[in-house]
């Protein structure tokens, strides 16, 4: 999702350039790699794309991890990071599990409890960052360890088997149902598409709309691009920081709850794998670490690529250790490619300077909390 606005006339005149820019954008690059990968996997293992057994689980994990990627992308958009994204997911899921198991709440109410809990823990994190001006990395790292200490303790004291397993009506349908279960006028949907895709798509559109259509979204991006300029433009940057962290917490919690509904139980292990993936998606998709630029489609594509590679490696029988090695290498290679691309694009525009162009930005990313 491009965030450039320009007058209609200028846009028309620049159409040729825009098309060229689209071809060199990270999003197009990602689509290309994804298509090639699907081709390779499809031709090497013809039965790899069996609808109900391969595509449906793949889409389920793409749906869940897209939300995780968005949770991180929100925070990256203001030039900060959320190391606690997995723990916030576990925190939100824990409350939903509590609501189902101990308070016997219906499905939707329990879901809301979890989302609110995620938003609150996110808001608390954002509030600490905004109030103290401490680097977001340290605050979220400390928060992640605090939650890492808290969550298993709650589980062991409140549930006999360290897991909440109550399943209210609707949980199975959201977590494991496919469109095969949705029948209308005697016709049922394909078994390859899980029901979970619908709410996730809705959330993706909401986040995309927030950034591209609303004033609030633009204010958040400006806060990330240049916090001083944002303050001088009368944007209450502290409130925006708190809000962004709250939304990030709620999104993380949503992802945690979705994961729990798909596996069928709420455990402290939810969110363990979220941290690396949450950075992979947005960064592969072109979101800047320094803040001020995001890409929702890119995040989705980045997550899809990472999971496709994962699934592909599993199909070819690679072990868990190789998965890690490959994911790390992909992150490095993709980022280096991205760096070469931006350097080449910038070259005609600005003189090569002694200092690397991104260093001040990186520094800003680290200390933007301090300038708040």
């Amino acid at each position, binding site marked *: 999702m491009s965030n450039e606005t320009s007058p209609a006339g200028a846009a028309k005149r620049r159409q040729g350039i825009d098309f060229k820019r689209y071809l060199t954008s990270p999003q197009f690059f990602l689509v290309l790699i994804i298509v090639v990968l699907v081709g390779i996997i499809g031709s090497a293992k013809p039965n790899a794309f069996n609808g109900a057994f391969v595509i449906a689980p793949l889409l389920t994990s793409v749906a869940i991890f897209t939300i995780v990627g968005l949770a991180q992308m929100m925070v990256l958009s203001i030039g900060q*990071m959320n190391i606690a994204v997995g723990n916030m997911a576990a925190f939100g899921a824990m409350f939903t599990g509590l609501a189902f198991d101990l308070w016997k709440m219906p499905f939707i109410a329990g879901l809301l409890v979890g989302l609110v809990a995620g938003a609150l823990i996110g808001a608390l994190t954002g509030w*600490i960052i905004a109030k*103290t*001006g*401490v*680097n977001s*990395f*340290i*605050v979220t*790292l*400390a*928060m*992640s*360890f*605090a939650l*890492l*200490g*808290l969550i*298993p*303790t709650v589980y*062991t004291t409140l549930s006999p088997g360290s897991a909440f397993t109550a399943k209210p009506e609707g949980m199975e349908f959201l977590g494991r149902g496919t469109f095969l279960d949705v029948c209308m006028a005697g016709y049922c949907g394909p078994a390859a598409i899980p029901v979970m895709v619908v709410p996730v798509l809705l959330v993706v559109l909401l986040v995309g709309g927030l950034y591209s259509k609303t004033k609030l979204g633009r204010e958040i991006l400006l806060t990330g691009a240049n916090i001083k300029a944002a303050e001088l433009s009368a944007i209450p940057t502290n409130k925006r920081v708190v809000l962004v962290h709250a939304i990030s917490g709620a999104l993380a919690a949503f992802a945690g709850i979705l994961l729990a509904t798909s596996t069928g139980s709420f455990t402290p292990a939810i969110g363990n794998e979220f941290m*690396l993936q949450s*950075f992979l998606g947005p*960064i592969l998709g072109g979101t800047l*670490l320094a803040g001020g630029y995001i890409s929702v489609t890119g995040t989705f594509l980045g997550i899809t690529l990472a999971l496709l590679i994962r699934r592909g490696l599993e199909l070819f029988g690679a*072990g*868990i*250790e*190789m*998965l*890690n*090695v*490959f*994911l*790390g*290498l992909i*992150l*490095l290679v993709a*980022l*280096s490619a991205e*760096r070469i691309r931006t350097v080449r694009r910038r070259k005609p525009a600005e003189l090569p300077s*002694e*200092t*690397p*162009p*991104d*260093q001040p930005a*990186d*520094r800003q*990313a*680290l*200390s933007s909390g*301090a300038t708040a």
Partner: protein
Amino acid sequence: MKLKLPASLGSQYLVLLATIVIGAVVLGISSGGNFFGPVSMQTFFQFLAVPILIGLAQMITLAVGQLNLAIGAIGGVSACLAAVMVADWGFNPWLGALVCLVVGAVAGLANGILVVVTKINGFIVTLATMTVLLGVQYALVNTRTISADNWKPVAALGKASVLGLPAIFVIAIVVAVLVGLAFKYTTTGRHLLASGDNEHAATLAGISNDRSLTIAHGASGLIAGFAGFVSFASLPGVNQSVGGDWLLSSFAAPIIGGVSLTGGTVAVFGTVLAAFVVRLVDSARAEFQLAPAWVNLVIGAVILGTVALGRLRENRESTKAGMLRARVATHRINAPHMAETAAKEASL
């Protein structure tokens, strides 16, 4: 001003020292004096070596304004590779110990070169190398634990004591002293600090920031490798969990010890003292038989508190400086004005 800076630093060390003394006394009383027994003290200092070393490793990257998330993975891989080499491939145990340091230095240099060449944020680079190294570590040892019986001479060093203190603790202190001296007296050390404090100024002064980043990451990796060696020598066995819980304490020690996250400062003594505090929390956890999760919670809270307090103090000082500037400015504006009125009065 010159007198004030060491005084404020001194007060921070005093707070840390007081925390350590009070914590030790409380632990001593609650354990009925057992805590100060020879066996308990031996284990206390023995397991202090790793927090000190990983704190120093992180401190060096923080000094140039970078982070190193891969410290635990570097330490884990180096210990596991050494264990596999000695136990499976029949190498000399001392060669294994040397391999720890070499692996650490190579991995750290790789981090530094990646950061410099690709210009990617150090956070992402070390996140990626951490993931890769965790995969390698798992590939090396899988789910087994390699017993320390395979490298008895090195393990003997892990249990040896010098002047009543465990040898590995002494090694850690020696490393700390060397790091402190390097930052204080060598040109390279001063270059690292200059790059970390203000890279534009450093560039203008003829310092290569790229060189500083590479050296800092390399040294950080080397010390992480040292921590891997200490684990290799002192643990009863090496498995894939070595290094898994180093991340938080590697940040805890330098940050509590007074190192700024934005670069340009080091506090070797503070880092060592803070590592004592971290170790005390761990001992208290064992003493009161709490779940290991509580250590994370307490240390997370302490880090937040320290950083927030430091931030508040900084704010107060900058407000004070601002008020002083304002007073000087009003004085300057008023002074000519007063002279003018005086002249008018005189002419009348």
